[in-house]
Each structure stands twice: as structure tokens, then as C-alpha cells.
């Protein structure tokens, strides 16, 4: 089972790498922010898998903190940093 956990963790890590493309590409600021939201959810899954693979239950607390704070950065973006005019395409 340990091998399965690690394989899946690695798979999710590669998934994250693919998601990075959206952060780089955009086109809107919201797209970039959404991609980091995906990062949060995937990171939680990776941490839970690693907790099981290494038999290290405290890692679940790290995942718990991630889950709790997943919304904070996105809320900061929506409330503060989202420019009023969004043309749909960033000035490249």
C-alpha cells in the first residue's frame, strides 16, 4: 500500500505542475488565483497521502491548517487586489 500512496502523491504533484500552466497563461487575474486554489486542494490530498505513507498522523494537522486557510488568499484577492477594470486579457 505504501507504494500506492507514494505513486498517487507523485501523480498529484505532477498534476500541480500542469496546473501551473494556467497561472502563467492567465488570461485574467481570476484565472491565476483559481489555479492557486487548485494548488491548495491538491496539496491537502498530497499531505493526507504522505501522512498515511509515512505513518505520521501529525501531518494531517498540516492538511487541516491548509484546508482552513485555503480561502484566505482568495478572499484577499477578491476584496482587495482585483482591479476594477478587467479586460479579459492582461497587458502582455
Amino acid at each position: 500500500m505504501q507504494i500506492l500512496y507514494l505513486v498517487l502523491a507523485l501523480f498529484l504533484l505532477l498534476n500541480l505542475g500542469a496546473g501551473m500552466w494556467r497561472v502563467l497563461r492567465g488570461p485574467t487575474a481570476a484565472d491565476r488565483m483559481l489555479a492557486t486554489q487548485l494548488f491548495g486542494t491538491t496539496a491537502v490530498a498530497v499531505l493526507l497521502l504522505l501522512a498515511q505513507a509515512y505513518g505520521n498522523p501529525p501531518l494531517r494537522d498540516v492538511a487541516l491548517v491548509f484546508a482552513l486557510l485555503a480561502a484566505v488568499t482568495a478572499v484577499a484577492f477578491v476584496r482587495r487586489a482585483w482591479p476594477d477594470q478587467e479586460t479579459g486579457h492582461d497587458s502582455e
Partner: protein
Amino acid sequence: MEAVILLQWTFDTFLGLGLLWLAWRALACPDLFRAIVLFVAFGLLLAMAWVSLDAPDVALAEAAIGAGLTGALLLAALARLRSSETNVEVAGQPEKKGLKVRNPQWLPVVVLLPVAAGLGYVVLSLPPDAVGLSAQVAANLETGGVSNPVTAVLLNFRGYDTLLEMVVLLLALLGVWSLGGAALRREDAPGLVLDTLSRLLAPVLILVAGYLLWVGAHAPGGAFQAGSVLGAAGVLLLLAGWRLHAGLAALPLRLALVAGSGIFLAMAVFTLLMEGQLLKYPPAQAGILILVLETAATVSIGVTLAALFLGGRPPNKQDHR
């Protein structure tokens, strides 16, 4: 077993390359907003690196700060920067200014390559096996009052470090406050969704902060992690439009801010008088003394971080008159 080790190596390699790549993109891409988003992603990946290095205490702190506070701080600063730059009507696009670099660029590369190579050489020349101070920590853990070695180091063996660290936090806040009051920005109504979210999450955040504080005695967790989670709760509430009641903004707020360093200092003086040594607790009472210190430190760290996010002295009653 071979397969497990191979998988761990692959995971570590991808993670390391990902960290370097994200850092490079965050520092090199032309748009400042994109740089901040990439930096937040970098923080998330870093938390996984701490887990991989068997440092769950560090991972907890990074998760709370990297995922919550740093991103919020940077994004809020960027928003205020944009409004101030457009107010003054600077020529040229503010977005593009992040790209402007000083020439010649090859000079720093030439200077820094040997520095990087030298640092790498020094790191690789270190002995592959070194116990460091872990043997001493393990030997003294029985008298430490807590069974989590990291908490024992932070609050007992090197308690004076933590005392001064609380003072550093306070100094950073004093620096921010000395630059003026908080900008009185008109916050939009949070709306039903954000209001509900903050009402649901804030109590859970405070509960988890208490949980981390409690388990810190025997498992990963402790005052810094709990304080960071508490600070994130404050940031979430501030973003939802909540403000400290003016009556609480004067003395009670300041008391909460200095509680950590104040009680720490009192404890230092007390132990100096009783035991003849700075922050040397009697082993029988060490556990309870550490819990008291950690509780005060958690409150102070949380309130300080939230106040730092507000970015200025909160308006007093006197200011309203």
C-alpha cells in the same frame, strides 16, 4: 523497499525543481500580480518540502503563514500600491515597471556564480552524518516539561531566543504604527457569502489554534503555529469588513500585544530570582509554566499579525472626537 526509496527520490527531485522554477518565475515575470500568485504557490510547495524533510512543526508554521498571511499581505499591499501610483499619475504603465532592470545584468551573474558555487561546495563538503544537538535535546527532554522536542527547545532550552523574538514582532508592529494610522478605507458590504464564510470559519480557526497550542506539548504544534492560525482568523475577519470596536482599540489591544513579551519577561525575572538562572524552570512545574507562556505568546502573535495586516495604528476614540 527499493521502489519506495526510488519514489521518494523522484518526489523530492520534482519538488526541489518545482521550488526553484517557481522562485525563478516569481522573480522574473513582468507582472507584479503574477509574481505574487507564483510566490504564494511557492509557499505551498515549500510546506510539502518541510513535510518531506520530516519537519512537521515547520510545515505547520509554513502552512499557516505561507498559505494565509503572506498572500493576503502582499495582495493588499499591491492594491494600495496601484491606487497610490495611479493617484500621482506616473507616466507609463505601473504594471510594466516591475520589469525595469538596471544594466548591465551580466555583472551580478558573474559575481554571483562563484558565490553560489562556493555555497554549494561548502554544503556538499559537510559530513553526511551529524547528530548536531539532537542528542543533548533528547537527553534533557525529561526535565523539559514537554515531550515535543521542538517545543522544548523553543520554550525551555532556548527560551531567551523566543523572548527576544516576541520583542522583534512587537518592534515590527511599532515600526508600522509609527508610520501613521491605518488608512480609512471604505470597505464594501461583504455580501451574504463572505459574511457566512467568515462567521463559519473564524470560530473553527480559533478552535484549531487552541488545539495546536494544546498538542504542541507532545506533538507538532505550539505557540507560533497557533498564533499564526489566530492571525489568519483576524485577517479573514478584517477582509470581511469587521473592525475592532473603538473602545477596545486603545488599552485592551495594547495589552494583548504586549502580553507575550510581558509575561515572558516577568517569567525571566522570576526564574532569575528563584533559580538563579534566566528562564530555568523547576522541572516539576515546567509543563504548566510553558503552557502559560505559550498561551500568552499565542494571543500576542495572533493579534500582532492581524494588526500588521491592517497596516497602521487603528483609530482611537480620541481620533473620532
